[in-house]
């Protein structure tokens, strides 16, 4: 009888020898997080990914699973991030015709604003005494997650810290765009959308689609262009620095 109980209690750790437990837990938390997000009335300040991540971490802690073991299993899911990044090229192509309508403002703003998004963060963190590891993890904070993971690996930063910073950035960028556009009385949906996508990646783009289809299209464009620009420039800039 005690043998039975022992084997039962050891179950989380014996099961986690195979990646299928990590995949199952992640999938379950993904759906539970989405369900909770809808039940809470789709709050802008709490994206579903944060809810899912909370639930998943709580489950891992409750089952006292080894975190590195979970991470190894979850590698099977993360393997799909490569092809998923390539897939982002399709919406980028589909929104590309919007550049034509507003090419001068977009092509001038993009390199300056996307560079400054990284520079502001790195300079402030550096002035407050952050280590090089933290600086490398904060630099890609305005870039959409799949691209930012690739950038962080190139810079030698910490992916978990970058992910946390990325989500906070998405939420506060959305807040600041709402606040500052009202203060500066900017009402052009194309400008709002572009600012949301450039600074707030996928979280900002979700907000832009709530404003209007035009704002959403310009947000997708801003997000895609910022991702490509930052991925090309940041590793070079860090190497020179």
């Amino acid at each position, binding site marked *: 009888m005690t043998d039975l109980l022992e084997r039962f209690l050891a179950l989380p750790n014996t099961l986690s020898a195979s990646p299928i437990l990590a995949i199952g837990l992640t*999938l379950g*938390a*993904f759906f539970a997080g989405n369900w909770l997000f809808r039940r809470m009335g789709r709050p802008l300040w709490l994206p579903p*990914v944060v809810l899912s*991540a909370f639930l998943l971490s709580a489950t891992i802690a409750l089952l006292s699973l080894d975190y590195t073991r*979970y991470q190894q299993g979850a*590698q099977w*899911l*993360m393997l799909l991030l*490569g*092809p*998923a*990044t*390539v*897939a*982002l*090229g*399709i919406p*980028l*192509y*589909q929104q*590309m015709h919007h550049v034509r309508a*507003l090419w*001068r403002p977009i092509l001038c*703003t993009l390199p300056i*604003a996307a560079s400054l*998004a990284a520079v*502001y963060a790195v300079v*402030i*963190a550096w002035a*407050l*005494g*952050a280590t090089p590891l*933290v600086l490398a993890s*904060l630099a890609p*904070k*305005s870039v959409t*997650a*799949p*691209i930012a*993971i*690739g950038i962080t690996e*190139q810079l030698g930063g910490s992916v*978990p*810290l970058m*992910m946390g910073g990325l989500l*906070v*950035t998405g939420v506060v*960028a959305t807040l*600041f*765009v709402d606040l500052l556009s009202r203060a*500066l009385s900017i009402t052009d949906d194309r*400008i709002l959308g*572009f*600012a949301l996508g450039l*600074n707030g990646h996928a979280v900002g783009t979700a907000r832009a689609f709530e404003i209007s289809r035009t704002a959403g299209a310009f947000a997708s464009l801003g997000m895609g262009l910022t*991702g*490509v620009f930052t*991925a*090309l420039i940041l590793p070079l800039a860090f190497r020179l620095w």
Partner: protein
Amino acid sequence: MSMLRGFLTLVLCFMLGEALRLVFLIPVSSGVLGMILMTITLMLKGSVSDDLATASQGLISVLVLLIMPGVVGVFFSADQFSGQWLAVAGALLVGTFLSVLTTLLLMASLVKAGQRRASDD
């Protein structure tokens, strides 16, 4: 079947990006190189096949699932960054405020300048 055909195109594009990165030692992730190749190819071709559209929509809609293992890590490696949280919070809050302000001001003034130029012509 359609989705898998599109997926094959995505995987091939990714592997092409990987090959470029490894041969030319480009400091950019294989996914981004594949994405750039994909966008340029589509711009030259001028259309997206249904297979590719289905596969990309499918993958993009589950992106959150794919990044979750990375997000969870922040709860388990938090003590690694003790003493750095003020710098992190400052960079995220003040940095994002400044970059949103810069983007809005820059875009608004450039759009206005463009309109003035158009009305002068």
